[in-house]
């Protein structure tokens, strides 16, 4: 029974985003559409476990949501000029034919571009996309953004208000604006993925698999906008990374380093798809690579048949440092230097980086110091890594390294 309701909840969650998309176009009002769909979702979750999944869940949700929206509009009709919207909706309810799937796709794309509009703050875009397009709950979004539920709820309200009041349009941007706007969408999808892959401090707390969700979203976008190199590269990156998910932890839940991972537990079909997508993506961008394509190429080098191709990884991080410089890129480049030219060279590079860095720097330093036999320094670096709030398996891995060094 629980499994059945979990499956129903998943259908409701995924179809809900599409119904919001369709209804927002009809109503011209995202908040009203979301509220109506929220009520329809609650009704579905009460009704479906008894009645079973309807043949066309999307049409079912849309009909119920339209009725709820119509109720609200009729109530408000007297004090505002919502008459026109109410009339249109009443008309639709009479016809009540479900919209064509391709029209639903178009609406969903409009919804994504509205939620990821650059006039909205980045975290606001992420929160709204997770809520509206992916159907995640406010508590789940709060965990992804490491914010309080109250703060997320308030941010969602403010964001919807800005969309309505500032007149952020509900449409796919024209071709001239598309590259910049697509970058904003890709950044949101990428953050959802990395939030899922890194895991929250402590244990896995988000109910929905965020990596799968990000891949689903990227697939959808790549389907709706075929041939966009950025989207293909992003999807390739996520597939090539997530393909290793089952090998990251051993049977006891302990972290396994990439070099020691059981390759038979990698998802070879996803690796093959990721490699093909990366090729296609690079072909379409005439060899000019953006950050996702470069990161996908790094992920591809890590799953190379003979083991990680460190010369290629080093070359790619050199390019990434130019295209999309970040502290994480600096650290990863130093790690590659350590693999290609030895830990002394890697450590020398790490020590030129500014202090107050992310977890990765401490781990990389500790590893090179350990390989150089500088035990005390290595222990100190592992402890610095432990102090920067890693996930539970990472904590056990780092503690294991410290224990082995102290002996």
């Amino acid at each position, binding site marked *: 029974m629980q499994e059945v309701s979990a499956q129903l909840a998943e259908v409701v969650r995924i179809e809900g985003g599409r119904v919001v998309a369709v209804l927002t176009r009809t109503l011209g009002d995202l908040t009203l559409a979301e509220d109506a769909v929220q009520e329809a979702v609650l009704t579905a979750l009460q009704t479906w476990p008894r009645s079973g999944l309807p043949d066309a869940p999307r049409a079912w949700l849309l009909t119920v949501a339209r009725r709820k929206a119509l109720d609200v509009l009729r109530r408000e009709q007297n*004090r*505002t*000029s919502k008459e026109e919207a109410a009339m249109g909706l009443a008309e639709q309810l009479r016809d009540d034919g479900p919209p064509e799937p391709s029209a639903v796709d178009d609406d969903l794309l409009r919804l994504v571009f509205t939620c990821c*509009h650059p*006039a909205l703050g980045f975290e606001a875009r992420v929160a709204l996309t997770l809520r509206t397009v992916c159907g995640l709950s406010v508590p789940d979004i709060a965990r992804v953004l490491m914010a309080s539920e109250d703060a997320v709820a308030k941010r969602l309200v403010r964001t919807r208000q800005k969309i309505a*009041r*500032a*007149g*952020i*349009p509900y449409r796919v*941007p024209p071709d001239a*604006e598309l590259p910049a706007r697509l970058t904003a969408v890709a950044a949101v999808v990428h953050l959802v993925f990395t939030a899922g892959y890194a895991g929250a401090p402590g244990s896995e707390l988000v109910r929905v698999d965020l990596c799968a969700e990000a891949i689903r979203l990227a697939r959808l976008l790549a389907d709706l906008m075929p041939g966009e190199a950025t989207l293909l590269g992003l999807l390739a990156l996520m597939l090539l990374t997530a393909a290793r998910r089952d090998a990251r932890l051993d049977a006891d839940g302990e972290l396994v380093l990439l070099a020691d991972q059981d390759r038979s537990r990698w998802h070879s079909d996803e690796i093959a798809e990721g490699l093909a997508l990366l090729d296609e993506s690079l072909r379409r961008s005439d060899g000019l690579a953006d950050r996702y394509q470069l990161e996908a190429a790094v992920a591809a080098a890590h799953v190379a048949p003979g083991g990680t191709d460190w010369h290629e990884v080093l070359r790619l991080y050199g390019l990434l440092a130019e295209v999309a410089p970040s502290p994480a890129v600096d650290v990863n480049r130093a790690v590659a230097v350590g693999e290609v030219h030895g830990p002394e060279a890697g450590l020398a590079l790490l020590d030129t980086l500014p202090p107050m860095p992310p977890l990765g720097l401490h781990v990389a330093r500790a590893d090179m110091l350990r390989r150089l036999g500088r035990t005390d320094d290595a222990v100190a670096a592992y402890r610095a890594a432990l102090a920067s709030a890693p996930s539970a398996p990472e904590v056990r891995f780092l503690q294991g390294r410290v224990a082995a060094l102290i002996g």
Partner: protein
Amino acid sequence: MPQYAALIYVEDLDRTTDRQSEETKLYAEFGAENAAAIRGGAALYPTSTATTVRVRGGRGGDVVTSDGPYAETKEVLGGFFLLEAADLDEATALAARIPGAWGPGGVELRPVIPMHTSNA
């Protein structure tokens, strides 16, 4: 159609001197090319001419004036347009053509509350 206030934050200069004539020309061009969308606007004298008015003790209380702008900032409100645009994207495209958006400072777009909902 929605209206937007385009608040132009620029260097705190006297925009009536000869040295500003080039800028004035650019604004005249903007005005001529976008006349269909412009519903109003003005350039302002520098903040050295500004007076900030506050009433202490609420409505009907003591009127207190102080010399200068409401907030001391590097760039100041140097002028504004009232623009009409279909949506924020269209308003953004218009704002990007305002000369004040090109230099240091920028143009703040604020949607205008339509009169019929302001008292709803």
